[in-house]
């Protein structure tokens, strides 16, 4: 009889403790969400990773560090900045002997830069994003010798928007930051 009463008391105590715990836990949830709600971004549901072209140093890590099999970082071309040169620093390697489109003369390792004759002496360059791996070799060449119209951007359609961008962690210039929806792209020709 004594022991039975004891166990009953134990069970009652355990139940009471459990209820108290539940109330505390509920309070924690309510107060935590209250505090956090004040800190939300009201206008944007989501932010995006993007490269600031003014800071980018074309180190080539975007190609290798992205978690995707083929990086979400692509080269983009600002035609309104481009000089339409025949001898393009982004298209040809620096010290080529013959200016022809043989692969050994071209900067892009995947042949993603398309060149089209417009009129003497201008050539139009476009990027085939399907082929681009984001190695930034062309952007480096263009920025070194030309107008800097080739530049790197995160393609938001491909980016999985990781909580922690693995490229950002190794970016030497701090060019990758989280930006608001309105600045999801940082175009050079705007």
């Amino acid at each position, binding site marked *: 009889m004594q022991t039975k009463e004891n166990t009953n008391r134990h069970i009652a105590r355990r139940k009471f403790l*459990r*209820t108290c715990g*539940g109330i505390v*836990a*509920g309070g924690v*949830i309510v107060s*935590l*969400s209250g*505090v*956090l*709600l004040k*800190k*939300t*971004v009201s206008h*944007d*549901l*989501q932010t*995006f990773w993007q490269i600031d072209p*003014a*800071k980018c*140093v074309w*180190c080539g890590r975007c190609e290798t560090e992205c*978690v*995707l*099999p083929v990086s979400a970082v692509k080269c*983009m071309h600002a*035609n*309104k*900045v481009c*000089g339409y*040169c025949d001898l393009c620093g982004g298209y040809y390697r*620096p*010290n080529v002997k013959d200016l022809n489109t043989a692969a050994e003369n071209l900067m892009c390792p995947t042949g993603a830069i398309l060149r089209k004759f*417009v*009129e003497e002496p*201008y050539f*139009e360059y*476009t990027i085939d994003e399907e082929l681009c791996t984001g190695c930034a070799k062309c952007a*480096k*060449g263009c*920025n*070194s010798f*030309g*107008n*800097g119209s080739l530049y790197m951007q995160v*393609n*938001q*359609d491909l980016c*999985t*928007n*990781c*909580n*922690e961008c693995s490229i950002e*962690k190794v970016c*030497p*210039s*701090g060019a990758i930051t989280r930006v608001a929806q309105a600045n*999801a*792209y940082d*175009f050079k020709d705007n």
Partner: protein
Amino acid sequence: MKKTAGLIPCLLASMAGFAQNRFPKPDFESGYQYPQYVYDVPSEMLWTTVDIFALAVLMGVVAWASLRRRTRLPITIVSIISIAYFGFFRKGCICSIGSVQNVAVALTDSSYAISIPILIFFVLPLVFALLFGRVFCAGVCPFGALQELVNVRNFRIPTALSKVLGMLPWIYLVLALLFAITHSAFIICRFDPFVGIFRLGGTVSMIVFGAILLILAIFTGRPFCRFLCPYGAILSLFSRVAVWNVKIVKKQCINCDLCRHACYVDAIRPPYNNKVKESRSAGVRRILLYLILLPLIMTIAALTLRTGSDLLAGVHKRVQLHEKYHLEGEQAIEVETFIGQGGKIEELTAETAEIQRQFKQYSTVAGALIGLVIGITLINLSLKRSRKNYEIDDANCVSCGRCFAYCPQNNKSSENTQSTK
């Protein structure tokens, strides 16, 4: 190539005004039109709404299946849906496990704004855990679902080992919070084992780690959930005091031990008769003694982690930059860009010292918390409570619903029960 290499340093030095107009804009005579590129910013509105909706509905289904219907099939279906949608389609981001870090940063850094979906992904499973137990873990979390579906055997891990490993999620959580609030890294995201599978690619270490865990998951229940998942650790606290919890039988238990064998996360405790007779006052005194010893363990752990704080601070990007400067000098591309952007080495050194000081403080607290985890685990081991029946350990139960089908009392139809009575 050599020419480029020679030119780059000069360019880096004059980053701000990097030459935009070496060549003038061409005057086209042929009426050439500039090509128009359209890059749409994907509207996250739709998918984020679907995410949140799916999260709530799937958790609701699991709660209904585990508490009302008491059957496993809906939970398996939820698992498949979750792997397909949250895993392969949404590529595992955003997830509740990682959201812990965003919340930690938002709470400590006034300039950090947390986005609403992340907040909901953090809070909603907690709310459900407080109401219905760990229904999120059951199959809504793609990681849990993946391990759930590959499991075929249930080799039991020795209790001693599982108790030791059971401390890991807490230690992982404490370290994740430490690195998050110091703005060093999101280690939960970085060492995410299964996201590589969902993205069909990733770093070698990620794939190897994920594969090892998945192979282990075939032979024992949910190694990641039990011994690593930091969010599961938080959920277990809420599940412990949940309003409604999984019950195996509504009728009289016949102590057949089948449910314990079915449970693959060791969440069912068998009846236990504590033979050690200890008077209540002696027991209370013993616990009090342990509680006095607890700060001692915490202090030791805190001091241990404090001595290693410089090592931990090495994860911070600025500290790494500083190290790079001392190892490779100005040749390193990071240092070169830092100076190119107008950074001063003295400022960097000061900043590094500040970060290391901050790490010293935080890692002391983190060490104390780890000591607390170890201490509480030890005290828990000394508490031996007699049980007459099979009891579900609400903290560890992941609501997977395996036990229901094994219980012979559950399977009997009501008429049979009447007749046996």
